[in-house]
């Protein structure tokens, strides 16, 4: 049985191609995912992301629990309520249970936004550890969520009314604010400025319609994927998973090994991996010729070592195929990708592929 978001009828009315994503019927595109992609790079687009999970942690020791559960350190948020942090949540082997954004709302309230596909796994994992910290978990299933992204996204959201203007105007990047039932954070999954907004399901349709009436383009999961790929952002289940650590997945910057006294799940596995020497990295590839790299394709390096593409696609901004690939650690400049029985030359590059709408 697939689930539907409160915007399901609105998507169908717009002619969206609907697909099953992690048990949710979601819009893939509303006609052209490339046009939707360009709208976000050049103006503003809105995504229904109500499939994502919202978990609130309540209790005096929420901070302690999160310092134990997350590879990044929520102590970094201490002095500034409203600040948000990207982190991986690790298993004992250092593999990634999920990647998430945690917002520090008050000393007794943290809000987590987690992936749809991993929601149950996350909730069970956190619950298992929460009781010994006397922290209550609250799954916010009656809340809906949209992302408004693009260089004009903030301005568009501020026009939704005084509440949005007041909340958004002075909000710094990677900060969240809440007033009444509305929660907005200056975060996203596109590489552009904008907001992710959590609000009661009943209010969603009118806000969605208002944004569309003001010229914000509805965007589906197809554009969401190419936008995040250009921005070099990981997708759980493809670029990161239970069997690879953040250190070998391009996410070392999200792991707080200092202070050394902080014990978090997965820490000893990460330390062992560092002591033994890292063997893998996550790198960017761009295909020099025609064709589109897809996840699962084999990559052969000049020294004949091999890697695999974890995410690939066509970059509308660069007009060429780009990919993330798990490669042996090393300083590589070129690689060959096996595509439809052919070996095609690719250039190894640092992430991201695009910043503020411009190819890098």
């Amino acid at each position: 049985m697939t689930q539907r978001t409160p915007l399901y009828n609105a998507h169908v009315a717009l002619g969206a191609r609907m697909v099953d994503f992690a048990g949710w019927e979601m819009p893939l595109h509303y006609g052209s995912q490339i046009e939707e992609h360009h709208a976000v790079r050049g103006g503003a687009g809105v995504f229904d992301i109500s499939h994502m999970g919202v978990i609130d942690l309540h209790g005096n020791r929420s901070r302690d629990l999160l310092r134990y559960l997350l590879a990044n350190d929520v102590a970094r948020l201490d002095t500034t309520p409203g600040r948000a942090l990207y982190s991986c949540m690790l298993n004992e082997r250092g593999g990634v249970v999920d990647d998430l954004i945690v917002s520090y709302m008050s000393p007794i309230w943290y809000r987590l936004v987690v992936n749809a596909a991993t929601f149950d796994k996350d909730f069970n994992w956190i619950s298992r550890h929460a009781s010994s910290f006397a922290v209550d978990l609250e799954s916010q299933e009656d809340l809906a969520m949209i992302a408004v992204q693009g260089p004009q996204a903030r301005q568009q959201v501020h026009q939704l009314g005084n509440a949005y203007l007041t909340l958004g105007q002075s909000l710094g990047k990677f900060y969240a604010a809440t007033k009444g039932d509305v929660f907005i954070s200056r975060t996203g999954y596109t590489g552009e400025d904008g907001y992710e907004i959590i609000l009661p399901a009943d209010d969603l349709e009118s806000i969605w319609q208002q944004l569309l009436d003001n010229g914000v383009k509805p965007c589906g999961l197809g554009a969401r994927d190419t936008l995040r790929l250009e921005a070099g952002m990981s997708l759980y289940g493809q670029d990161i998973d239970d069997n690879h650590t953040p250190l070998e997945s391009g996410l070392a910057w999200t792991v707080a090994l200092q202070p050394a006294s902080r014990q978090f799940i997965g820490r000893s596995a990460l330390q062992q991996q560092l002591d033994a020497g890292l063997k893998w990295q996550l790198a960017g590839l761009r295909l020099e010729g025609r064709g589109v790299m897809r996840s699962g394709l084999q990559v052969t390096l000049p020294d004949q070592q091999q890697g695999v593409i974890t995410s690939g696609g066509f970059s509308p901004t660069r007009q060429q195929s780009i990919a993330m690939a798990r490669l042996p650690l090393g300083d590589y400049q070129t690689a060959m990708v096996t595509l439809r029985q052919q070996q095609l030359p690719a250039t190894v590059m640092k992430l991201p592929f695009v910043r503020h709408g411009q190819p890098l």
Partner: protein
Amino acid sequence: MSEIPAELKYSPSHEWIRVEPDGTICVGITHHAQDLLGDMVFIELPEVGRQLSHGEECAVIESVKAASDIYAPLAGTITAVNNSVEAAPELLNQQPYGDGWILKMQPDAATDLHKLLDAAGYSALVASEA
């Protein structure tokens, strides 16, 4: 809803075929096919003059979703290819039955045309795959 023009013939692999007055055929992909594939990003065309057997792979279309082969709907010789879709693959999405045509062929035998589906047959095929 997919558009399935009544005057065209169809293949089970979602190509459409228009019989021209001079007996050549024009080939493209159906509205239904482009809708399933999503935005086109690359098209690889064959050479004019190439001889094809029935069902032979003769072009590759690559969309945001997948790469797909185009199959020769009949045996014959390629007489023309649409170079403008190489530069503008989105024509296959925007005008699949018009400017988004892919290639033209001279069929070896006009009688082979009877092996193709008509619009009703293709509609039934699309419905059965839904």
